[in-house]
């Protein structure tokens, strides 16, 4: 019942949102002079604050990239840290222009809540972590287990579906804040911890005895995480989408933050077009942006691979492998449509 009410309220809000939040987000953003970006209020590697109060993370890089594409200046962005529960009303009400908060793309979020998703900046999947002492080797042996899970996420729903479809029982132990879930699991209040696999590796680092826990091989869901915008503003949607694709394309071309200016002299017509060096090209203008938009994005945050390694990969304490997030040509799923 509560859920129905919430859905109705959100759907109603979405209806208002279309009228309340100005339809042309790009004009709005240009007029304001900054992009208001909804980010995670605290997820290592995706959105968090350092000691000086600066935001950092894969999603934060994406916000900066959009600001760089629009203004040529990655500092023209303001962050609204949002919890899992508050993120959708915030986007619907126009409080933020863009939601880059490790949000899973699902059909109901796309239709019912009135959002648009396209690029995926992190392919994730839900996994399980258990204590080794339980002797469990597969998620199918988890019948009757107490499972710690964070509420308000697709994780909670996938968990219910997975146990139901495999005719297993479980006791959910539900919390709103991630650190509450962490503490409960470490204190032994539940046998199993479930969340996106990227998160499980980070969380395992914080446990008292990381060696005594293992992450089970099963991935029970697809979690394509990507930026979301409000429906009904295709121009802004295109800018957000192609900002990500520009980062991927740069990696395909081998353009990095470091060699960017050398690449400007490249004779490769694709690269010239991409970086806005081709005189008659109107790619940037058609997006409503400067022709150097892609150059500005790479200048600000580097290509996708650089951003990945810096925030969640080998350059960070999380050390997550590229896996599914590698380029399509290297066995992953990151694939950008041609920018021409």
């Amino acid at each position, binding site marked *: 019942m509560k859920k129905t009410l919430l859905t109705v309220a959100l759907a109603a809000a979405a209806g208002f949102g279309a009228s309340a939040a100005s339809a042309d987000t790009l004009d709005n953003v240009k007029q304001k002079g900054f992009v208001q970006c909804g980010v995670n209020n605290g997820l*290592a590697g995706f959105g968090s604050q350092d000691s000086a*109060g600066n935001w950092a993370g894969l999603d934060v890089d994406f916000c900066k990239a959009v600001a760089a594409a629009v203004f040529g200046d990655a500092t023209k962005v303001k962050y609204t840290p949002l919890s899992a529960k508050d993120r959708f009303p915030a986007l619907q009400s*126009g409080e933020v222009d863009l939601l880059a908060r490790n949000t899973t793309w699902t059909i109901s979020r796309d239709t019912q809540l009135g959002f648009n998703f396209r690029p995926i900046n992190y392919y994730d999947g839900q996994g399980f972590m258990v204590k080794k002492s339980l002797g469990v080797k597969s998620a199918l042996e988890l019948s009757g287990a107490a499972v710690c899970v964070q509420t308000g996420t697709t994780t909670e729903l996938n968990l219910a579906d997975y146990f139901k479809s495999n005719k297993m029982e479980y006791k959910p132990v539900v919390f709103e804040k991630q650190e509450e879930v962490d503490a409960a699991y470490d204190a032994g209040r539940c046998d199993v911890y479930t969340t996106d696999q990227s998160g499980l590796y980070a969380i395992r680092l914080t446990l008292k005895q990381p060696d005594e826990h293992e992450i089970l091989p099963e991935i029970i869901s697809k979690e394509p995480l990507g930026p979301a915008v409000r429906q009904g503003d295709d121009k802004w949607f295109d800018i957000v989408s192609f900002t990500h694709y520009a980062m991927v394309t740069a990696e395909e071309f081998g353009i990095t933050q470091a060699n960017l200016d050398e690449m400007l002299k490249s004779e490769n017509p694709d690269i010239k077009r991409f970086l806005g060096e081709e005189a008659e090209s109107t790619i940037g203008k058609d997006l409503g942006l400067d022709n150097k938009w892609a150059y500005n994005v790479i200048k600000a945050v580097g290509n996708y691979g650089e951003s990945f390694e810096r925030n969640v990969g080998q350059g960070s304490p999380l050390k997550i492998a590229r896996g599914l997030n590698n380029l399509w040509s290297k066995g992953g799923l990151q694939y950008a449509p041609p920018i021409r």
Partner: protein
Amino acid sequence: MADNTNTSLQFVRRELVAAQKPPSQEIGLLAWARKNLFGSIFDSVLTILALLTLLWILPGLIDWLFIDAIWRGTDRTFCATVAQGGIQPDGWSGACWAFVADKFQLYMFGSYPVDERWRPMLVFVIFAATLAPLLMPRVPYKVPNAIAALVVMPVISFFLLHGGVFGLSVVETSLWGGLLVTLIISYVGIVVSLPVGILLALGRRSEMGIIRMLCVAFIELIRGVPLITVLFLASFMLPLFLPPGTSIDKFLRAVIGVSMFASAYMAEVIRGGLQAIPKGQFEGADSLGLSYWQKMGLIVMPQAIKLVIPGIVNTFIGMFKDTSLVSIISMYDLLGIVRSSFADANWVSAVTPLTGLIFAGFVFWLFCFSMSRYSNFIERHLDTGHKR
């Protein structure tokens, strides 16, 4: 008869006996312990149980908090065991004060730009300089002091913090955070809620129907809704109903929400005090020919407020702690910023969340305890014979 010196009495003491010390069993630590800790068998059992509990908890706590704690360090490796990828021996656990030290400025000012942090610091100084003398009964010039602390200080602080005048750069409220936000919201709440609460309480007891109804409606409406709901509505739903382009600062919305809340609760506390004043006081004032405001200001309120000081301070303390709810609308007060700092990948470890929360709890305790002690002091200072 006339000459006492020739009496036949055997002995008359002519000087006082030097006072003797009480029997040794009745003084000193031992006697105190026997009387207070081992007065009866039941007392003795309780004392021993309490001592055992302390012995059981304290050494571990002290070890964890101080002895095994890490005081200096630059990243997570200092507070993580080898198995967790750090430098501490396996099985180690202790407070990670290095984390709090590294994040201290963040906890105090939030995302306030580093170069501009002298501004909140200056505000803290002005805040202390105007408030401290106001709180000390002995210091003269109360009226100018009160105007300085309650009117001038907030205005100066606002312009200092927000900027945009005298060449100060604008620092938006969305960048404010940490203890700064906690203190601003609760200070404004306290300064606003007391007078508004008094007016509401008087209004609720007024004989003018419309005023009474309005006051009752306001109080009951606000008290009937959770603070978290008001904050959430003000933050995410209000923009949907306002015409596009109009925006009221989120921080301001939170401050207004919290102040309204505190006022409604304060009104009921004050009304409790008013109920306790005997009817004769009102009638006495009337018979002296005092006007309504003179009666209330000179006779009734001073007595009523003195009676409900514990209730007032209770409301203040409750409100101070409630400010942590503003994190629901993406504003980061002390607790909110401490919690969000756990996600800094440079500091991810098993002990950082606990250390951060202990720090936040300690700061909250420090403020609430000071308020509580101060209210005790004021109660004693104002005590005029109701003491029990």
